[in-house]
């Protein structure tokens, strides 16, 4: 079942690589939609009571106890759905601009996107640590070529920076993975299976070292404060579509990994590290929001807001209570949708104005109200306006933060204010006031673009008012994982 889920986009990638030039885009989109459909099918088969489901386990490298093992739990399902849902809009959004200046074709763009989707799905469903690591790294190659092949000048450098950062993180992860393996070997059962590893009793010192490895790796991926420097460059130079995939799908692997590995396998060390992690998360939240305010490049700005959001997610994870955990996971989904909306709309805007600089835009709302409106919704979602889905998750995280310590909560609240500043100020500078684009009148969204934006907006609103379906899936997972950490639950949320 899950293998097929991965295979659909993978086959799609290969198909796109070989079909005639004219059919590249339709075929690509077809496979994107097929993945979405199949993802929904998988979701419909999912039993909301939690636990690993639809598991498949095959021996892969017998000599080292590596398995090809897949499984789906609540967290995984969320991420899978997010991934399959984001890809078709991205494809549609790049329908025209996937031709890069040097004539790098739509073929490679669609192929890489599908490959990236396949690898990401594999990441979210892998239940073998080494398999996870393999696909974790494998996502980077499509990402590298997406960044380096499409976008603005200087993207080669950005792509290289991105790749080196990520691979460095990956190798740190590898160290920890091997460490886990060796620990399991010492215990007499060399294995990479998460289920085997979770059963291990690892001594505290080893656990802490392993934790540091895992955390740094995922913090680079996520990104969290001291490891975030690649993010801004990448999102500035890459196309908005690529950024969507990176920030909304790929970076979630970081927080996903923290939940699955740091908490799941190394609970004691996670608690040991909580103070530091929480501080880093807070710094990310505030710092991300602060530097976002001053940005002139719209893509860079949006990218930096994500830093702040990832801070929230990590905060939610590491405050160790049910509300925080649930909020964090929900936040991952919501942030994905909201940021995708922002990036895509910004992309449309850039296409029209031919510039990414906020200082050269303005007055768009007069000519293109739908564009401006959707941009506003995205911005408001980012700053957590009630009624839009991020609000729910943000509130849950903040409540959990206050539970943890009042100071933590206070700092988190501060971030909301900052978020409101950057979101609204950005809107004000780009959409209102005098027209400085020089390409007046800026055309409004056409039907294809509306078709892209509408589902996203709809989802934001829908989950803002009615988050229950998501929570039903998330809660059992959070319950399980916190139990494993050894925290007694003082009543779940809602």
């Amino acid at each position, binding site marked *: 079942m899950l293998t097929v889920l991965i295979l659909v986009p993978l086959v799609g990638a290969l198909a796109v690589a070989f079909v005639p030039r004219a059919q590249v885009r339709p075929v690509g989109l077809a496979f994107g939609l097929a993945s979405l459909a199949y993802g929904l099918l998988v979701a419909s088969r999912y039993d909301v009571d939690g636990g690993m489901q639809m598991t498949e386990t095959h*021996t*892969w*490298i*017998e*000599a*080292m*106890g590596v398995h090809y093992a897949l499984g789906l739990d609540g967290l995984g399902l969320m991420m899978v759905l997010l991934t399959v849902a984001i890809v078709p809009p991205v494809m549609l959004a790049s329908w025209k601009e996937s031709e890069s200046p*040097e004539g790098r074709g739509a073929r490679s763009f669609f192929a890489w996107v599908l490959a990236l989707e396949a690898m990401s799905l594999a990441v979210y469903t892998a239940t073998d640590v*080494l398999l996870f*690591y*393999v*696909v*974790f*790294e*494998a996502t*980077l*190659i499509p990402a*590298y*070529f997406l960044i*380096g*092949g499409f976008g603005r000048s200087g*993207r*080669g*450098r950005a*792509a*290289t920076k991105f*790749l*080196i950062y990520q*691979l*460095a993180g990956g*190798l*740190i992860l*590898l*160290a920890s993975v*091997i*460490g886990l*393996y*060796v620990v399991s*070997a*010492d*215990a*007499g*059962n*060399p294995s990479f299976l998460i289920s085997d590893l979770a059963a291990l009793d690892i001594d505290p010192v080893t656990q802490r070292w392993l934790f540091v490895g895992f955390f740094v790796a995922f913090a680079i991926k996520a990104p969290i404060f001291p490891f975030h420097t690649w993010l801004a460059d990448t999102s500035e130079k890459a196309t908005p579509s690529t950024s969507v995939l990176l920030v909304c799908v790929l970076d979630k692997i970081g927080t996903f990994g923290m939940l699955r590995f740091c908490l799941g396998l190394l609970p004691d060390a996670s608690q040991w590290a909580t103070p530091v992690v929480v501080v880093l998360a807070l710094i990310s939240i505030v710092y991300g929001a602060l530097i976002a305010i001053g940005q002139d490049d719209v893509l860079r700005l949006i990218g930096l807001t994500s830093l702040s959001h990832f801070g929230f997610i990590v905060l939610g994870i590491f405050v160790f209570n049910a509300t925080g955990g649930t909020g964090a996971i929900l936040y991952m989904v919501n942030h994905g949708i909201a940021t995708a909306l922002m990036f895509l709309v910004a992309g449309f805007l850039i296409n029209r104005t031919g510039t990414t600089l906020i200082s050269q835009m303005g007055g768009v709302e007069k000519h293109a109200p739908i564009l401006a409106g959707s941009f506003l919704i995205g911005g408001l979602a980012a700053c957590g306006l009630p009624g839009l889905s991020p609000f729910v998750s943000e509130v849950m995280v903040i409540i959990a933060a206050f539970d943890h310590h009042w100071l933590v909560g206070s700092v988190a609240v501060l971030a909301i204010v900052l978020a409101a500043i950057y979101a609204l100020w950005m809107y004000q500078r780009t959409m209102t006031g005098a027209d400085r684009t020089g390409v007046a009148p800026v055309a409004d969204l056409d039907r294809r673009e509306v078709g892209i934006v509408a589902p996203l907006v709809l989802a934001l609103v829908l989950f803002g008012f009615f988050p229950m379906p998501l929570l039903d899936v998330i809660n059992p997972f959070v319950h399980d994982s916190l139990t494993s950490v050894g925290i007694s639950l003082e009543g779940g949320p809602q």
Partner: protein
Amino acid sequence: MTDFVKPSIDYFELSPLLVVFAVACLGVVVEAFFPRALRYRAQVVVALVGLVAALVGVVLVARAVTTYDDGAARGVLAVGGTVAVDGPSLFIWGLVLALAIAGVLLFAERHLDGGVSAFAGQAAAVPGTDAESASIAAHREHTEIYPLMMFAVFGMMLFPAANDLLTMFVGLEVLSLPLYLLSGLARRRRLLSQEAALKYFLLGAFSSGFFLYGAALLYGYAGSMDFAAINEAVRNDVGSSSLLLIGTGLLSVGLLFKVGAVPFQAWTPDVYQGAPTPVVAFMAAGTKVAAFGALLRLFYVALGADRWSWQPMLWIIAILSMFVGTILAMTQSDIKRLLAYSSVAHTGFILVGVIGLQTSDQLADGEITSLQAVLFYLATYGFATIGAFAVVSLVRDSGGETTALARWAGLGKESPVVAAVFAFFLLALAGIPLTAGFVGKLAVFSAALAAGAWPVVVAAIAASILAVALYVRVIKVMFFDEPVGEGPSVTYPSVLTATTIAVGAVVTLVLGIVPGPVLDLAAVAGEFIR
């Protein structure tokens, strides 16, 4: 006087070795008696058929060998205990032969340079003289390269299978001497090539002197050249330990030179840059495999009981190799030199695996042994390297191969396939998942970590991170940089080089995705015969 005891020569077990040697001799005969017009074809056919026959022999022997002495190892001690035909030997033989087949294909390539091979038409003709232009006009070529290569292959097979110091020394020389000559035979940039040969030769002879003196001292210590006897002596702690220590050190110098580990890596870049690319491809892969085989056998079988004294040394050398190799590779502007330094770094990585020696009772059931890890790494490295150098031979400009990195800019546009394949090899060398390099690194790291060498593994990870930057830089140049001038051109090779590249790429990919069979093979190979 002791009575003469006829040694038992296990002809069947040695058949691969003997076949290769016979083929080498046959090559010389062909060279002597065939008319010039026929030599090229005859040599290529003889070499290929011989190597394939030897490979078949390896398979047959591997199926036939039985457990040795009821231990964990399988195989026999042939020729009075001087050659150990055991699992690791057979694995390395198979590997060397496979690489040699690829090497012959590269040697035989005549399509790239307008109908002539990459080797000097007449090595003795001084560049720029009438003699040389005449030899070019006459389309002369040295078909001696094939027998020379066969001799080198023979050495590469004898070296890791040697079970005493003398045989090992002979193997070392038989492997080295033909390579010295081959290094000096480039058709273009002859002076560079000759200089490479000279440096390789002088340094190689120098290091083999060290090896030999080390052997003498160990012999003085143990009273025997035989590995098992040396091990016994070490175990019983006979004789002066300073002899043992100095002897081990000097032996290591010789071996570490061959593998290109750091204090002894100076020859690598020069030789890799100067020697003809097909030779480099074959040599880089084959020598490393063979030399590591020998290194493993020496350290595990003869000096296994003394590992507390050599492991710290290897720790330092491994770390140095990884860092120096990687960092110097970053500063290179020539692709062949870059690959040379990268091979130095890889030596470090393989040494990380060598360090992971544990006795079998320290290992959990099913845990990967260091021997298995190193053997697997060698397989992955060998194929990726030979493939990478094969690609290097394709990228040309008017002056022949263009190896300056800057000239490679825009290769991704000129020939996406070639650039992609090269990028793939680079990623494999960097150890990115889904390539063979990753599994290899994983294997050696886990072996070393299991043995408690965590500082080395941490250093190795750090070096890997640096190395990633190195390889990504090349990929960036190929795909994202603007070409200089007209940009590089890619000459499409004949089926020979194409096959080599394809095989390299496929093996690298397959070993990355389903490494199981080869890892199992390495596991089945078992331990060294002691």
